[in-house]
């Protein structure tokens, strides 16, 4: 079964390369969604149904937003890269990171053996053993998200709030006025 996971990852890498290298705009947007759906399948496979539900919908939303951003301005194709020399330097740098990564990743616990299996002190053990009694939630992920680590979730809700307020502020048509002009609230963007 682990081979299946490897194949899925290779599929995602190919889709990502297509998304980045294709000249057709729609193909790029659809390929990046393919990467997203690849990860959805991987999440289901890795027993993370909670996580898998969110990206399905998020991917659709990103697809709609990206298509909106690209199609409505009437662009069909993308233009090329930055200069050739910079590209070679980048590729060389990324190769170095990759080789270093492969070397050091041998120190990580093998895939399929989570760190909590070895570490007696891992908090995950406590969550799994006492989660239901502590919080009353049978879904341990929810127990972690909204009780043990609820403060993170507050931060996450705040991030979303921030980006919405920020996007509204960026999109507003009229940003500057004279100091004496009164404030007008407008939703036409």
């Amino acid at each position, binding site marked *: 079964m682990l081979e299946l996971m490897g194949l899925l990852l290779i599929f995602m890498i190919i889709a990502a390369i297509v998304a980045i290298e294709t000249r057709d705009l729609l193909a790029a947007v659809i390929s990046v969604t393919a990467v997203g759906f690849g990860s959805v399948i991987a999440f289901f496979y890795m027993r993370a149904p909670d996580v898998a539900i969110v990206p399905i919908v998020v991917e659709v939303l990103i697809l709609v937003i990206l298509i909106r951003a690209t199609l409505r301005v009437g662009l069909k194709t993308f233009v090329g890269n930055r200069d050739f020399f910079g590209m070679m330097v980048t590729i060389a740098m990324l190769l170095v990171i990759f080789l*270093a*990564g492969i*070397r*050091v*990743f041998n*120190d*990580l*616990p093998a895939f399929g053996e*989570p*760190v*909590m299996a*070895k*570490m007696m*002190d*891992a*908090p*995950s053990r*406590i*969550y799994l053993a006492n989660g239901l009694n502590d919080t009353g939630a049978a879904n341990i992920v929810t127990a972690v998200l909204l*009780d*043990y*680590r*609820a*403060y*993170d979730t*507050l*931060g*996450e809700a*705040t*991030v979303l*709030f*921030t*980006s919405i*307020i*920020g*996007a*509204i*502020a*960026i999109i*507003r048509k*009229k*940003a*500057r*006025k*004279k*100091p*004496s002009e009164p*404030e*007008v*609230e407008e939703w036409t963007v």
Partner: protein
Amino acid sequence: MQIIPLFVAIPLGAAFFIPMVGRKNPRLSDTLANITTLALFLMALSVIGKATQVYWMGGWVPRLGIPVGINLVLDGVSIFMLVTITLISFLVTIYSIHYMDKFTSKARFYSLFLLMVAGMNGVALTGDLFNLYVFLEITSIASYALVAFGGQHEELEASFKYVVLGCVASTLVLLGIAITYAMTGSLNMAQVSTIIGGNFKPIHLFTMALFISGFGLKAALVPFHAWLPDAHPSAPAPISAMLSGVVIKTIGIYALVRVMLNVFGMTPLTSYILLVLGTISMVVGVLLCMGQDDIKRFLAYSSISQIGYIVLGFGLGTRLGIAAALFHLINHAVFKSLLFLNSGAVEYATGTRDFSKLGGLKDKMPVTTTTAVIGSMSIAGVPPLSGFWSKLFIIVACVQAERYGFAAWAAGVSVLTLAAYLRMLKRTFYGQPGEAQPAAREVPMSMKLSMVALAALCVVMGMLWMPHAQRTFLIPAARVLQEGLTYASSVLGM
């Protein structure tokens, strides 16, 4: 009732509330925002000198020494950062009352501003790696939006550049946190540091490289500085003051130093990396800033140089070096915000930031000129202003640690800084009147008020080196960082 979580909860609540009530009534949002930042500042003052306190969110205290929930840690460094953040943000909100009349959507401005402050307070207080990432993102996203707040060509462009590099930085940090979790099974900084405890495998070095490049991007250390000279000048002046004054220090330097020193533990290698990065930033920043013709770009490049001083001090790893770095951090927060507010006042009065169009403003804008002179002299290290003392102590610490080369660089850069700032003052406030200011007048009251307050701080901050202030404020902060891995035992109570 404990005060610690309120440092985050109060600005968050205000930020959620202001867009609801303040849309139609900008004066109400002014009032609410100023009350909030004043309250935060008073709260920060009230915790000065307190012993280390650990606050477990949701009452999830550790079980058998295993941390279950997220903790907030109020120790010397956190108090130090909180005071810096809330002081500057309070003075900047006062300034914004009149300055932001030039822009629409003031309620959203204050909301984003308070979210940024909440994010920084969260970063300063947290004792959990992933929580650090979440609050880092809050601060970053709010600042991306605030850079683009003016909505003009270059503002949007600078913001896009900032978003892209900021996102890459956040992803690098998140990858680093993920690898740390994969190695230790924990996200709590104290527990991670007991597990890693200074014995490094290659993967830890890889993780540290990720953290240094991620936080280095956020702090605009030199190989990673491309976004800063665009982003900081493009923002509205109060936001430039916040970005250069506290944001890059909190989500860049503080986060980097906390992770390096308290979680991984300082090694000769990391110390050397920090020293070199600091020196390069110091030199390259000041050289780039000499050639600028835009007053805000000039200040932005100078920030890179001063950040270099701070990193150099931390890189020494000695008690004196860290204390001097912290001292320079708060000093730089004060005078760089002052100078950005001055540049905002100049822009408010004349409509331009270009040296070639400015000049001879000293008669028309006496308050701005005087405060700008004090700020410039302080940053250039002229005695007896605050900047002189902190730079002196950084150099002394270099000498004490027998890093003579670095001491020489620090002294040399200080001279170059003085030259650069004299040129800036001459071309803006003294010399021939330029073409842009026939109608220039002194700025409104609230803007003057905060500039004068910051200039006064520049004069008196040298006093922080007095024995009493040092003992209650600087030394406890320096001790937490210098003692490195004992952080874990003080948090987990073992």
